[in-house]
């Protein structure tokens, strides 16, 4: 196993910049997720690490070796494709044995058999070894594809949305299985997905990309609780974070967030946080965006304190234990997450307060986070 390092990597398709000046380090034995919407450059990045795309500029290292000019077959990697890419004319056994048969190292027949059977046992596909890919269900094919990757002990596993085509139930199951497998094999894994839930639940660290640019690298906790900009804040979390345009008014030690619905006084610790990161704001009001996650509102039927605002319930979506409540306020619509026990109906007027220690504040122009 080895670490993977990307230094100032670019990928250009003609004039289109798919990956822009990307520098990353995936540590040894780490489960590393590349997360982003489609077209963000995450798959191009993975394919450059695999050697299936040329690196336009920059360097990629596996371990301590620069692999820019190394053929895929000599990179000592294993990859699971979004479409599984099983060889249709080979049985499951032959599919899984293929990397051992064509690779640089010569394995004896008995060794190949042993390794394939071991991998099949881990993935619970031992009884499918004689079948052909067309005789398997989607979930089984996906296991075979993973099996083909784990029969060797490669330096790095690369996974390109391996479970995005499974049905929801199987996907949830496989998330756990994959994470367990990665820990058991003690492997370095680079995992590409557009599903923030997958990334949050499986990764040790996540790199979020958008439009070819790296937005933030961090643990799931850092990504969720300290997003560096509005894109990261909005991409992670379900339902996504609510953004409310407002002004920041500073007069002495009193800092207030103001718009047509509310005036929220910032507590001293948030002011400290703001100052620490951004210095003193000028005295004139700043154009800011308040970010509040759906679960960080307190809802009540009547006006509790001064620092909240009224909204009207647009629709409710009960989800068993939780309930998603859409609330309209002037110029905006918010999504709230609350307990299903609350008696809230369409058309009700509700009083909303934000949990101040969970608030995020962004620069409206640059979309960078103030805190």
């Amino acid at each position, binding site marked *: 196993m080895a670490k993977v390092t990307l230094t100032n990597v670019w990928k250009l398709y003609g004039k289109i910049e798919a990956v822009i000046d990307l520098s990353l380090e995936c540590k040894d034995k780490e489960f590393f997720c590349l997360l982003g919407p489609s077209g963000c450059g995450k798959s191009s990045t993975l394919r450059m690490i695999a050697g299936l795309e040329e690196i336009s500029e920059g360097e990629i290292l596996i371990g301590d070796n620069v692999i820019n000019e190394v053929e895929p*077959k000599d990179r000592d990697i294993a990859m699971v494709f979004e479409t599984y890419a099983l060889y249709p004319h080979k049985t499951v056994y032959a599919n899984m044995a293929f990397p051992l048969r064509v690779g640089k190292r010569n394995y004896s027949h008995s060794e190949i058999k042993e390794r394939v059977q071991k991998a099949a046992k881990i993935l619970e596909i031992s009884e499918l070894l004689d079948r052909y890919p067309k005789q398997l269900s989607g979930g089984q094919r996906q296991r075979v594809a993973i099996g083909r990757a784990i029969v060797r002990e490669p330096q790095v596993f690369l996974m390109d949305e391996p479970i995005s085509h499974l049905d929801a139930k199987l996907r949830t199951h496989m998330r756990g299985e994959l994470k367990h497998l990665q820990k058991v094999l003690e492997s370095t894994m680079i995992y590409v997905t557009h599903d923030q839930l997958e990334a949050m639940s499986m990764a040790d660290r996540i790199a979020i990309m958008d439009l070819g640019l790296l937005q933030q690298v961090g643990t799931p906790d850092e990504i969720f609780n300290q997003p560096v900009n509005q894109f990261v804040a909005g991409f992670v979390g379900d339902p996504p974070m609510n953004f409310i345009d407002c002004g920041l008014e500073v007069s002495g030690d009193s800092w207030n967030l103001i718009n047509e619905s509310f005036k929220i006084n910032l507590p001293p610790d948030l002011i400290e946080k703001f100052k620490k990161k951004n210095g003193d704001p000028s005295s004139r009001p700043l154009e800011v965006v308040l970010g509040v996650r759906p679960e960080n509102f307190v809802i009540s039927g009547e006006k509790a304190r001064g620092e909240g605002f009224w909204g009207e319930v647009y629709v409710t979506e009960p989800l068993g234990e939780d309930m998603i409540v859409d609330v309209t306020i002037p110029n905006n619509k918010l999504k709230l997450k609350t307990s299903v026990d609350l008696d809230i109906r369409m058309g009700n007027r509700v009083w909303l307060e934000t949990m101040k220690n969970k608030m995020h504040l962004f620069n409206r122009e640059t979309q960078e986070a103030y805190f």
Partner: protein
Amino acid sequence: MARTELVSKAAKRKRAFWRTLMYIAIAAFFLWTTLPLLIMALSSIKEHRDAFQIPQVGDWLGALKIASFSPTFHHYTDLFTKEHFAQFILNSVIASGSASIIAVSLGSLAAYGLARGKIPGEQHLSFWILSTRMAPVVAVMVPLYSIFTGLGLLEPSRWRNLLGLILAYTTFDLPFAVWFMRSFFEDIPVELEEAAKVDGCSNLKAFRKIILPLAMPGIVAALILCLIFSWNDFIFASIFGQQAAKTLPVATSELHSTVSIEWGGILASGTLLVVPMLFLGLLVKKYLVQGMTMGAVRQ
């Protein structure tokens, strides 16, 4: 019940009418295409006078006489004992077989390259390759004749003339093979190749181990179609094959003398020409309909 009532009787009748018309058209086409072959095959095992027992106009039952004769195979044996047909068949097999194998071997590499589309101007290149097949055969005949004369391929020597024929067939089979196989290669998902490379294959090994076996139905179909084209050729064979490398179609055309036409021999030879191609035709059908990706990737 409710549904059948919804379809009116008139509509039903109309549908039945068109259906019947369609079957009549198919039957007519079937007879039109197969009767000549049947008559040829039957007449080839008849004595001359049986073969020419043509019923009077209007005597429809007389047509049944086609089946009343005592079979004889002497037309066939004559072809081999009196006319050296074994040699001509061999010439046909060598010329069409070699040309098809060359066309498919070179063509599969070219088709694969074009299908993967990493060649600049690939669209123009493929169209140019196809366009060479659009020219009428006679258009290339004169220049080819001059080139072949220069190369000494038209000297009266069996092997030289055969080589000329193989070259001529290849020029026409190759563009077809490239164009035909290209779509087969295009249907093979690129991921399979990428997976093979990541698994440890070089480019050539990935082609040999993964792509080639999957494209095999297309390659076999192309091979058979090239074989059929070259086997059936008359014009190249009559000019470049000369006397030394006479092929079956040319030999058949020469089965007449100044005083008589050897109908029996011509029909027998015609049957010999058609039967192998008939079987190859059935074979190619099997390969063409065979599914290719077979669950390789999610569909």
